[in-house]
């Protein structure tokens, strides 16, 4: 059976309120991701400290 003849559904247009919610969600995800990256970076620096270069290459 083939779906070749089935017309693809056009995505439903978001209402202004839904767009606003999506933007807020995207912003929250971006901020959380940025905060996580910064936290892991700072924790790594604090745990390794000045010994960061003391390793064989």
């Amino acid at each position: 059976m083939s779906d070749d003849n089935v017309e693809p559904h056009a995505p439903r247009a978001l209402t202004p309120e839904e767009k606003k919610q999506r933007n807020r969600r995207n912003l929250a995800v971006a901020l959380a991701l940025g905060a996580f990256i910064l936290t892991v970076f700072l924790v790594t620096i604090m745990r390794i400290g000045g010994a960061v270069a003391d390793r064989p290459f």
Partner: protein
Amino acid sequence: MAGPGDYFALLKPRVMSLVIFTALVGMLVAPGKLDFFLGAVSLLAIAVGAGASGALNMWWDADIDAVMSRTIKRPIPAGRVPRAEAAAFGGFLSVLSVALLGLASNYLAAGLLAFTIFFYVVIYSMWLKRATPQNIVIGGAAGALPPVVGWAAATGTAPFEAWLLFTIIFLWTPPHFWALALYKRGDYERAGIPMMPVIKGEASTRRQIFAYALILGAVGVTPYFMGMAGLFYLAISAILGVGFIALSWSVLTAKPDDYGPAKKLFGFSILYLFALFAALLVETIVKMGAGLYV
């Protein structure tokens, strides 16, 4: 469409605040010294781990939440967040929080956090909750672990003292939830949850609440006798312990259709646990202050 607030609600912020508080007390009462920043990150990781298990619980229990008045407005039954998204959100945060705690403190703390999440989601939510009236008794171990995780984060160990804090929360959980289950019995019945009042009846539940209150009242004061706490803690835990037992007695002796004492006990139980851990925290902060200035 769900906003950030709906995802935050999936983390069960109220439960999370109690987890943060008890983990912080475990972390500070422990004799180890943890750097302020690493301690704060560890606490954040514990909080996110607790929130993640809350999201996974809401994913699994969406059918129950939809028929209970207390939970019907949660993001999944209200139709704001799809179940699969809650599962992905909770699973993702679980992995992230355990990894972050391992990085910021040690692998014992990270392992204990992973076990807490596993116990709450798999052992309690998926298995015990729908299977036995002892669900919240055994499942209470998940809610009791945060101070042990906090202690382990600070010291890399989980000694007897940490497990004493665990025991206090573990013994507190049954009378706390059974008091609620007494006056929300209809909700649990409709949802098919075998809570103690539904299976064994209200009279048996009231007796068990009183028995747990007696044990809790005694165990509540033991941190003083173990040398973990001072006179201030002893006074708070003794006074509130007597209050807890007295309220449980009024639950036991109340008329069958009188749920006033159960409602009072439920509210008082939150105050009891908060006050005991706050007393430990105050004493620790005072000791730390004295250590700085002597």
